[in-house]
Each structure stands twice: as C-alpha cells, then as structure tokens.
C-alpha cells in the first residue's frame, strides 16, 4: 500500500470541494427570499415543516459542536522534515 501524502494545499482543495450543507431551514429562507416579505424571516410556514427544520438544525448544531470538540483534542503532529529558518530568529 503506497504512502498517501496530504499537503496543506491538497487539504485545502479537498475541503473546498465539499458541498455546502443544505438544511431545510436554509431552503425555506431561500424560498421566502424569492417573494417580497415584511420581516427578515418567512412567515406562514406549516408547523410540521417548522418542527422538521428545527430538529434538523439542532441536530446539525450538535454534530458540528461535537466535531469541533474532537478536532480541538487532536494531538499535535511534529513536522520533522520541515526546516523553519525563521524559528532561529
């Protein structure tokens, strides 16, 4: 099995290819923006759809917070092959 090298550039390219998440709440906002509305948020949305959108958003927030916590606990990786000349200064 060959060694897979991940550079900063390839990581950035990889992340850039990830599609923006699509949540029902965002879809409802987009649909609402197509019509002139009085307030900032769309009105007249069915209760069942609101509940679905809130459930999805709360779950997404929870998963995002969990991912952020996991990432914050990642161990540092020493870059032994990289020479940082400025460090001496």
């Amino acid at each position, binding site marked *: 099995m060959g060694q897979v090298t991940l550079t900063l550039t390839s990581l950035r390219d990889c992340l850039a290819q990830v599609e*923006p*998440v699509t*949540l029902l*709440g*965002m879809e*409802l*906002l*987009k649909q*609402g*923006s197509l019509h*002139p*509305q009085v307030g*900032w*948020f769309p009105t007249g949305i069915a*209760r069942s759809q*609101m*509940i679905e*959108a*809130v*459930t999805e*958003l*709360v779950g997404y*927030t929870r998963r995002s*917070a969990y991912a952020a916590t996991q990432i914050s606990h990642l161990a540092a990786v020493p870059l032994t092959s990289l020479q940082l000349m400025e460090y001496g200064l």
Partner: protein
Amino acid sequence: MSYLLEAQQLLIVGMSADPVLCLTNAVAWLDPFWDEFADEDDYGEDGDTLSLALRVVRDSFPDIYVQVIERLRNGSSWEEVERLLCSEIEKLGIPLENLEFMPYGIPMPAYGVALEDPEFYQSHPDVIPVVQAFGIDPAAHPYQVEVPECAHIAGQSIAASLEDHPDEGYRNLSWLMQWLFSCSGNSTIDFDYETMCEFQPLSWEQENIDFAAAIIHEADEIISYALNGLKFLQTHSSVLTALHTNVRRIYKAISKRPKEKRNDNPRVRCVWPSVASGIDRTTLACA
C-alpha cells in the same frame, strides 16, 4: 415599495444566496437559543429555570420549542412563555405546576397510601368500609390509625389472587387492593409523598422523560381501575361481605402460623360470590 423595504429585500436575497450567511440566518430564525446551551453539562444548576426549561424542550420536544420561538417572535412576554412551557410539559403527562420545580428533576406524583395516616381517610372517606374489612377503624384512632400487622399480607394476597380473574369487577378490586396495600409495582402508586422524596428524582433527559411519562400514564390507569374497583364494592354488597369473610379467614390462617412465618403467603382458598361471569370461587395461592 419604499427604499427601506427594497434595501431589506436586497439584503434578504443576498444573505440567502451566501451559504454561510444563509446558515447564520437560519440559526437566528429557528434556533435562537443555540448559544445558551453550549455547555452540555450545565443543566440549570445556576438556578435559571427558564434556561433549563428551554434546554429541555430544545433537546427533547422540538414542537414545544417551535411554539416558544413563535410566541417570542410575536411579542409574548417571558411570563407567557413560562406558562406555555408549563402547560405543554404537563400535556406530556409530567405534573409541572411551576417552572421553579424543574431544577429538582422530573416531578412525579405520589398516590401511595399510608394506612396509618388519619388524613388519608379525610380525603378518601369512601375507602373506610373497605379497610374496615381488614380491622382498620380510622374513627377509633383519630391521631394514628392502628393497622393490624397482617393487613398488608392479607391485602396483597387478595390482590394477587384476583389479578387474573375473568370478571372485570374483580380485576378492578385487585387494583384497589394493590393501591391500598402498595403492591402494584408502580412506584407512584406504591409510595406516598414522603417515601417518594427519599429517592433521587429523574433528570430532564429524553429517555427519563419518556420513562416518567410512561410510569405516570400507567399510574393514572391503575387509579382509574382502583376507583372502579371501589365502585364495584359499593354496588355489590355481597362482594364486600365476602371480602370481610375472606380477610377473616386469612387472618385466622396467619395467626395459626409460627411468628417467623407470618409474612409468608397465607395460602387460603377464598370464596367470592358470582357477579357477572358466573365464576364463584377463586383460589388464593394454590401452589
């Protein structure tokens, strides 16, 4: 359309087109309290009951959370939101009179009977003829009702024997015995308030709320059956007479036993009158 409204519409369209701004806007719209609950372990310990209530409904009851957000957006006061939260949580079967009780855990009713307590007979005078069958006379002991030692054994034996009776009236009589002699297996039926207070309340988490609601729902059913059992006794004097006779026979059987075995099953064959099903004999502990 005025320039201001046009500007607002332009901003709305712009924000909806950008994924990050759209997500931010969706959070502001649908989950405005997300930042209140960043710390998973902070479950209202700071005494902020409204925060705790909001967190509970956000985590477990999105339909109530949506109602809260809608009310706040429509200009309702926090007092109105508190009332809404209480009433909606009560609709789930949890007896929450006031949000102030939330930090103590899920409140549970305590229907348990303390036969020694004279106050019980003041609030339930209709059970006096039933307990009199067990030699309990609340009128004779106004401060501390005397309960014969074997009353609970007798009551529990009768409850167990009638549990699977084909006649509904007798099954309800079994529930009445289970309530009066604390042997239903449902803690809200078997424990009085003081006993219930000795237990650590359930915390406000989804599975605990479901569990508590199931216990309370079952307890409500048991109380309803027990009250039907009481009505059955009140409307069938022959059954009440049979109860007196059967308890007397059980007491007699217990008294003949050595002291160390008086808590064992008395194994007495009870006789009950035919009421509807035509079955007139029920065996107590035939084993």
